[in-house]
């Protein structure tokens, strides 16, 4: 462990009311893109990078391109390309690789940038405004 856990107590009620969205005072200081973690081995595979070159939602579907099918790549990249012969979400790629989401995003982002993978679709809240789409969803869920 790199640091000790904060010893403040669990808030008793609705703690976000008192804080800016997503930045609770008891939380880590927005560590996502700062402060490289020297104790975490997975980032070796990203050459220490923690930010993807491409914005990638967890549920974004990525798929191999024709160029990707012919590409000669190694290790994680090869594993990802093989896995993405069918559209897969970034989250699924992460679980498949056994790598944290942040690492997976960097790796997938590189492959997208190299045109070996393509982002097929991301979730959008826009569909929530479409009653017909919601009804279709309801029909699908009811029929599960």
């Amino acid at each position, binding site marked *: 462990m*790199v640091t000790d856990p*904060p010893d403040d107590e669990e808030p008793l009620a609705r703690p976000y009311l008192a804080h800016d*969205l*997503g930045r609770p005072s008891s939380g*880590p200081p927005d560590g*996502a893109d700062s402060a490289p973690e020297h104790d975490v081995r997975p980032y070796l595979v990203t050459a220490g990078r923690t930010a993807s070159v491409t914005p990638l*939602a967890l549920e974004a579907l990525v798929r191999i391109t024709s160029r990707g099918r012919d590409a000669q790549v190694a290790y994680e990249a090869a594993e990802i390309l093989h896995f993405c012969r069918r559209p897969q979400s970034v989250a699924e790629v992460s679980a498949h690789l056994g790598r944290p989401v942040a690492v997976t995003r960097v790796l997938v982002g590189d492959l997208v940038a190299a045109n070996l993978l393509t982002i097929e679709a991301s979730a959008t*809240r826009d569909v929530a405004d479409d009653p017909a789409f*919601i009804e279709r969803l309801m029909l699908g869920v009811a029929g*599960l």
Partner: protein
Amino acid sequence: MSPDSDRSPIPVKILISGGFGAGKTTAIAALSDIPPLTTEGAMTTAALAVDDRGGAEGKTTTTVALDFGRVTIDESIVLYMFGTPGQDRFGFMWNDLADGALGGLVLVDTARLKDCFVAIDYFERIGLPFVVAVNQFDGRENLALAEVRVATDVDAHVPVVAVDARSRESMKALVLTLLDVLLQRARSWEAASAH
């Protein structure tokens, strides 16, 4: 462009929130086509967990498990369910998870009612439609739904319902409750914009 002729499905996403041990993973498993997958959601540093489950205080880790499942709705829609880490210490992850989400399910364990406050609070703040679902564990004394509504102080239009997170049918009904909230919203917007 993809060389494949078949089109990718449209991914949609809902969040399944609630305190540690409220049944998030069970709920995902009940609906998912695939066994729930787990990945590490923590980014780089200092994601320190202190699980608030009796006796487990002090357990720390630098990563947070992120459970998710997938449901094929039809040939062109796939629904992803993400279990959000219940503790507010992971608040920094929530914007990421909520981006693009249609709505949220807040699972409540009445023995630890306050654990759901973080999720309710967050969903209210970002205006994400949600349903409060009281998980009916076996042999547990449960608060009445009305009591949960009072305790959580959610708006009148937010459904507060009972669920058995282990049951596929019960989870289907819960998701339909959320979708119905979305449908009412979409219809009212459509009606409003028609004037």
